[in-house]
């Protein structure tokens, strides 16, 4: 069965999407003259500010490109669907945002992204631009606790990018922005479930098979299989399974604050996400924690995959301040 999509040709989907994005948000972002796959904030980069470059494959919108703007990322390198961008657009981003204070790369921990961003970093260094890298690794389902560095970056990017973007916007040094980014990442935990698969514009075939009544627990945001398959359970039980995993990671004490993201994977209605949030908040309260900041919606999607994830970031005063700091992006804003 061929899946249905509103596209022209699968091979052109990403480029045409970017044209549509540029037309919709010309006040906030622009396309780099050096590469059609490098999207730059209109009001982000400035002298003395660390340039924050994010990026990754397409198909997760509003991640990544939607988070470019004042107070968050300065530029985004855009890959094909579920494919890391090549070094060229990454390097174009670097040149657009480098203002002498160094550049920080932030992206999810995937082999393809690491290789391409590393190549771009090497090229930047040959041009005497200092580049640091922080990988996001928030997906608790993707590796055990003693192998955190092997975990995937998923919806928790949202908080980690936000914190680092705010730090850069406060004109912290490269050392400090890097420290904040690592700190935020180390306190951000996500787990998700998939109910129905996604399909690529170029294949229009389901990426994987999820039979009637079954869901995939801990799946990746590219439709990668998760840790197990289960029958679809009631919302509260799904949330409990996720929260148990997340709480096992957070060394939070009574009264500590967290911020919450209940994220839809693409085809799950807001209704279901808010039903999940009800239980998420109950569990946070039961654990003696305090929620300060809740986001519910499609922030990191997998094309038309059905499912959802929950992310908690364990706040401290600094992270709270950075998460609350205003930002204005094409598809997201705070303050």
């Amino acid at each position, binding site marked *: 069965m061929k899946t249905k999509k509103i596209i022209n040709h699968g091979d052109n989907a990403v480029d045409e999407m970017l044209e549509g994005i540029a037309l919709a948000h010309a006040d906030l972002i622009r396309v780099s003259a050096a590469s059609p796959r490098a999207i730059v904030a209109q009001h982000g980069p400035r002298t003395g500010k660390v340039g924050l470059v994010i990026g990754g494959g397409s198909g997760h919108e509003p991640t990544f490109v939607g988070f470019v703007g004042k107070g968050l990322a300065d530029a985004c390198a855009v*890959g094909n669907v579920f494919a*890391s961008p090549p070094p060229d657009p990454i390097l174009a981003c670097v040149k657009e945002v480098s203002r002498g204070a160094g550049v920080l790369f932030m992206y999810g921990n995937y082999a393809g992204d690491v290789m391409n961003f590393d190549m771009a970093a090497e090229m930047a260094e040959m041009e005497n631009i200092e580049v640091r890298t922080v990988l996001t690794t928030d997906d608790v389902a993707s590796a055990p606790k003693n192998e955190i560095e092997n975990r995937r970056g998923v919806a928790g990017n949202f908080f980690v990018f936000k914190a680092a973007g705010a730090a850069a916007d406060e004109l912290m040094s490269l050392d400090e922005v890097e420290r904040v980014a690592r700190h935020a990442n180390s306190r951000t935990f996500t787990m998700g479930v998939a109910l129905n698969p996604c399909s690529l514009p170029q294949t229009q*075939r389901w990426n994987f098979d999820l039979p009637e009544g079954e869901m995939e627990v801990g799946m990746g945001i590219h439709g990668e299989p998760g840790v197990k398959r289960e029958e679809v359970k009631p919302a509260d039980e799904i949330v409990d399974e996720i929260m148990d995993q997340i709480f096992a990671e957070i060394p939070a004490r009574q009264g500590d604050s967290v911020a919450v993201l209940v994220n839809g994977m693409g085809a799950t209605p807001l209704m279901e996400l808010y039903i999940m949030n009800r239980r998420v908040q109950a569990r946070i309260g039961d654990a003696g924690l305090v929620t300060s900041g809740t986001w519910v919606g499609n922030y990191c999607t997998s094309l038309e995959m059905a499912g959802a994830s929950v992310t908690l970031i364990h706040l401290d005063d600094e992270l709270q301040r950075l998460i609350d700091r205003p930002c204005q992006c094409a598809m997201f804003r705070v303050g």
Partner: protein
Amino acid sequence: MTGDDLKAMLLATAAAMDASKDQLCALDGEIGDADHGIAMSRGFGAIRTALDDLTGETPTGVFNAAARAFLNEVGASSGPLYATAFMRAAAILKGKETVGANEARDIVVSMADGIAKRGKAERGDKTMLDAWGPASEAIQRTTPQSVLEVFKTSAEAAKIGAEETVNMLAKKGRAARLGVRSLGHRDPGAVSAALILDAMAAHLEENS
């Protein structure tokens, strides 16, 4: 084999990647993100475009053009891996006008080396290295008499290597997060590697 012959071989490989697109996507869907066929066919498609106007180029020039084209079209994991492989092949052929049996062996060996260096995978990690590695070893164990023999021997070894990934636990790439759930599936990158070498051998056979 001149630069133009090399170009013809790469174009034949591009056609093979187009034909294998669905199969490779389906394999990648089992333990990855279902796009490996797209990456390979787009990458070789970009090579085709880049080589189109290129005639009378040296083997090094052909491989360098292929590397650049593949890298910038694909990104993903396969982009840097194959781009590095092609760059290594380009480097090893520097100064040579034609490719004979020895140079052909150097190509396979240096491509495998490039992939190993760039990806930092080990043999048995369930990656394309489990096809390129055996190919490289097989060709180093023998003394091939012709370019065709090099690619035939390599292709056979790569094919066996790719089949053996079915029993491997993934340690690199997306599938590495699946633990035991990666067992029972062939690695798509290893399968495409075998298909590349097979397409090259078949092209040479047809044109020999």
